[in-house]
């Protein structure tokens, strides 16, 4: 059978050493999951999920991760705007400060939060004295720790989008009499909507998986601060089936998020410029 001319394509073949090494890399990522899925007690999946300890952790994780994603949006979008458009000395240093928790060991973030917002912390003691409010060992502590670690993902995604968005649309809107705030709402935010979604989803996924900062700062109380990641780690010692089932849930979620975003994250910026 002859190929019609229009269907002909030239495939750029990768050099074979590259293919070999890349295959090894893919295997490196795939094998752990294959191993995990192989040991998963599929028949008991729903029984384990139905156990109250697991359900409690799952529900806590859902609530706190969504709250962290919302907090990241509320605070991260203005921050991203200031980093992208603001002109002030030390902007790079501010960006480094606000995104440091991405690369910092999460435990260190948790320690920092503990000594500043903990009950005896530099700032936390005032919260306790004045409002009898404590972050530590409460749901609010979980949300704080997760937001601390998750928000940079949103900030960087949204900042890139704001940089790439054509600022002349904002000029046009202002020349028509729009105040800065009106233009931000009506022009800037709609223009970066894909990045807002991508950033919020990434922040949410990061919050869902947060472990180190949370357990260090908020502790490990079932129902209030024991999130799925923490429950998984602890279950490994007591009931491996639980650990496996919780892991499967999180793997499925993470894969769905990244697959759903596909080019949105990588191309969040390029997809923006219209």
């Amino acid at each position, binding site marked *: 059978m002859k190929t019609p001319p229009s269907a002909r394509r030239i495939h750029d073949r990768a050099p074979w050493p590259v293919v070999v090494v890349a295959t090894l890399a893919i295997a490196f990522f795939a094998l752990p999951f294959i191993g995990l899925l192989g040991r998963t007690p599929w028949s008991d999946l729903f029984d384990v999920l139905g156990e109250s300890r697991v359900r409690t952790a799952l529900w806590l994780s859902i609530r706190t991760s969504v709250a962290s994603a919302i907090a990241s949006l509320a605070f991260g979008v203005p921050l991203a705007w200031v980093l992208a458009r603001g002109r002030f000395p030390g902007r790079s240093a501010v960006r480094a400060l606000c995104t440091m928790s991405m690369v910092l060991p999460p435990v260190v973030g948790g320690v920092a939060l503990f000594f500043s917002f903990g009950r005896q912390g530099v700032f936390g003691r005032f919260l306790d004295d004045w409002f009898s409010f404590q972050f530590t060992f409460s749901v609010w502590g979980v949300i704080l720790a997760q937001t601390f670690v998750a928000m940079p993902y949103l900030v960087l995604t949204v900042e890139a989008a704001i940089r790439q968005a054509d600022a002349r649309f904002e000029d046009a809107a*202002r020349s028509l009499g729009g105040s800065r705030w009106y233009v931000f709402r009506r022009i800037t935010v709609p223009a970066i909507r894909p990045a807002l979604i991508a950033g919020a989803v990434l922040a949410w996924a990061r919050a869902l998986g947060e472990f180190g900062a949370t357990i260090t700062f908020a502790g490990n109380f079932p129902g209030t601060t024991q999130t799925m990641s923490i429950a998984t780690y602890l279950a490994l010692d007591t009931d491996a089936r639980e650990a496996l089932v919780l892991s499967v849930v999180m793997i499925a979620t993470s894969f769905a998020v990244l697959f759903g975003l596909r080019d949105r994250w990588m191309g969040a910026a390029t997809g923006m410029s219209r």
Partner: protein
Amino acid sequence: MTLDARFSIVRPTFSLDVDVNVAPGETLAVLGPNGAGKTTLLRALAGLAPITRGSISLDGTVLDDPEHSVFVPVEKRPVGFVFQDYLLFPNMTIIENVAFGLRARGTAREAARARAGELLEWVGLSEHAQKKPGQISGGQAQRVALARAMAVSPRLLLLDEPLAALDVTTRRSVRTDLSHLLTNVDSARILVTHDPRDARVLADRLVIIEDGRIVQSGSFDGIAANPATPYVHELLGDVS
């Protein structure tokens, strides 16, 4: 004189030093090669670029005067701007684009829509009101941009290369349409272009800028008859 602007802008690699006056109902064309400072001139008048020295005043109101620390921000200036590639807001319909300025200034939705409808009728695009900017032609987009800029009744209308984004085949008819529309506009107008044909059809007076300086000004025929520089000679030579 409605517009009275005499100012300079000094930047590390570029400087602009101009003196322009435009009366209501008059169109001044600013011609010059790329990089001469034409767009910077418009941005300064609109308030999108601050001036270094001198002053800009419109109808006796000072808009920018660094020596007296006066700077009216862009959104407070009675200035309409038609940008080179029109910059219609892609997430809004045509009529929402035209109504934007009125909405931004606090006009109620219904009143803004009604006024935007009238302006779309003026530019002959009523039937396209509900389309998105991506669904209309370049010439139509230019008229939407004009209607949008006129919605806020500016006393100075700035047009930055309004025909440059168009196909050569449609440019002539769009230019004629624009010329008819502009006769109904009673604000002072400044048209920036690098095409002398635009200047001849659309403008009452010309100013020619080279390297940030005005090298010649006057009527089209007057300048064409007695070009001051080789560039002006080259520019107007094959049109007149």
